[in-house]
């Protein structure tokens, strides 16, 4: 197989990139628009994924499972935000990562419900049958589809919809207040804006989007493991955000594709090294991207410097 021509491989990489794009769009609302540095973002994706998985394995239909999963992630955001949003930015960052880890350790320990480290099997429920039906239908009209195409389309359609939603929200007074909160919290409060409530709404919306990413991830990987939701996932999300540009939705898309290419797309390149060493080098590159961006272009490729606020 010539991997450069292997459509399935690139469909896999791009699906992965699309899930990351959705995930980081949620992060963008929090970090870029509101100035909340949330290092526990992956926890809300975990809530979305495990809610989907647990509902589907218990016979609930997809059309109920998806909205419930997204709502559960949003509720998780509210629950975390209520006590913690008054903290200073650096404290908030540490608290969110700790909360995410508590959730992950709990999922790992409650084996009876979640499958623990053995994984939650068949978490995508009837997705595979649906996928096969779609491919058969296209086969019926004479179009031969790769089995990865339906999810690829769904994932990027979701990213597009979320992006459009955010662009539309961007034209409303709502996002203007968010940006005011980011620029100067005290001034926004002095103008009579309920700053805390706006931060909470941003966190809930960002978490809901992460929940959607969790739903898509469940379809993508079928079996869920607690290890999939380690803090590193959030930090790779931050690498995407930083590369694309804090505050830029288009930057998220570019960043997702570039980072997904580095993480899994470079597998076709034949390095004269052990697989372990190549894996290590990939993350060295991601680390260097974060460092280089923060040192020389903290606003990212597509961000605006005057919109960047990285002070606590």
């Amino acid at each position, binding site marked *: 197989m010539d991997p450069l021509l292997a459509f399935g491989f690139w469909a896999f990489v791009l699906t992965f990139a699309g899930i990351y794009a959705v995930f980081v769009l949620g992060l963008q609302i929090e970090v870029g628009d509101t100035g909340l540095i949330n290092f526990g973002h992956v926890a809300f994706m975990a809530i979305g994924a495990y809610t989907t998985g647990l509902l589907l394995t218990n016979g609930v239909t997809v059309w109920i499972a998806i909205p419930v999963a997204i709502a559960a992630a949003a509720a998780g955001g509210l629950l975390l935000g209520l006590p913690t949003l008054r*903290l200073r930015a*650096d404290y908030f960052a540490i608290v969110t990562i*700790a909360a995410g880890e508590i959730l992950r350790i709990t999922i790992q320990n409650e084996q009876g419900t979640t499958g623990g480290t053995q994984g939650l099997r068949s978490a995508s429920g009837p997705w595979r049958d649906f996928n096969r039906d779609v491919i058969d239908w296209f086969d019926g009209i004479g179009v031969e589809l790769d089995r990865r195409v339906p999810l690829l389309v769904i994932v990027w359609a979701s990213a597009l919809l979320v992006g459009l939603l955010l662009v539309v929200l961007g034209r409303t007074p709502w996002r203007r207040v968010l940006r005011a909160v980011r620029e100067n919290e005290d001034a926004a409060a002095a103008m009579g804006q309920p700053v805390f409530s706006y931060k909470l709404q941003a966190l809930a919306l960002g978490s809901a989007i992460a929940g959607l990413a969790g739903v898509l991830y469940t379809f993508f990987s079928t079996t869920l493991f607690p290890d999939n939701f380690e803090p590193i996932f959030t930090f790779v999300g931050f690498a995407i955000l930083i590369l694309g540009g804090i505050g830029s939705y288009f930057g998220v898309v570019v960043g997702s594709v570039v980072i997904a290419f580095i993480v899994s797309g470079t597998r076709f390149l034949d390095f004269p090294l052990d697989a372990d060493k190549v894996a290590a080098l990939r*993350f*060295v590159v991601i680390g260097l991207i974060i460092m280089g961006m*923060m040192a020389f272009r903290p606003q990212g490729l597509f961000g605006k410097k005057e919109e960047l606020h*990285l002070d606590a």
Partner: protein
Amino acid sequence: MDQFLNTTINGLSSGSIYALGAIGLSLVYGILKLVNFAHGDFMTLGGYVAFAVNVSAGMPLSVAILAAVAAVAALGLVLEYSVWAPMRRKGAGIMQLLLLSIGLAFVIRNMILFEWGGDDRRLDVDQFQSWNLFGGVSITAIQVTVIATAGVVLVAVATMLRTTLVGKTMRALSDSFDLAEVSGVNTKRVVIYTWLLAGSLAGLAGVLAAIYTTLTPNTGWFLLLSVFAAVVLGGIGNAYGALVGGLVLGLVQEWSTMLVRPTYKEAIGFLVLILVLLVRPQGIFGQARTV
């Protein structure tokens, strides 16, 4: 009672490792306003330098500890000159430095993975020797090594911070950088000493973690959040607080195993972290003020 004493011994072992990591993390946070997410990977590097000297080169453990301490202290200095000082001159904000340290953490951790691979490593220490103290209470040779080494170093560091001029200026800088600077403190020199101290202690903590548990490229990263909890518990920037915070956190985590499943003990530590930040963000020893 036996169970209480056994968990206390366990808690002192892990707690002294947290304490060693936390002192440096807290001073760097307080003095340089740097929330250093690479601190855990400094610890890991210490562990692997000790592994290289102790196992690969077959030298005694004491030599390995000295080499690890020297190597990580040197890394701290190199990074100060090459990364942190230039960034501070640019006027980088606290979150910018924090995100940069996450990138640095990726780089260090994966260079370690590149060099040494992902397998579990052990240092050349007696894994099985243990003594029955009395009744059902026992202590392993590993625990004695960890507690004794950490104990001596922690007392020395606490004395240094309390009695020497360098120690006092470090604490003064952590309290208020500007005030110390206008009082005529040579802040540049103190910053160098801070990195030397933070690096040395992180290196030692990494070696002890490698002795006490296993060594993988993720060892320090997994310890980091607990070390953060110790820092927060003691009050950010407060070196004594970090020392005590580390021990308290280790004890709380181990004592919790008498009530909940042992696999939850890390989560208990993180819960302590969150509760302290919510209820008493200045830490258990700090005085109430704007933080």
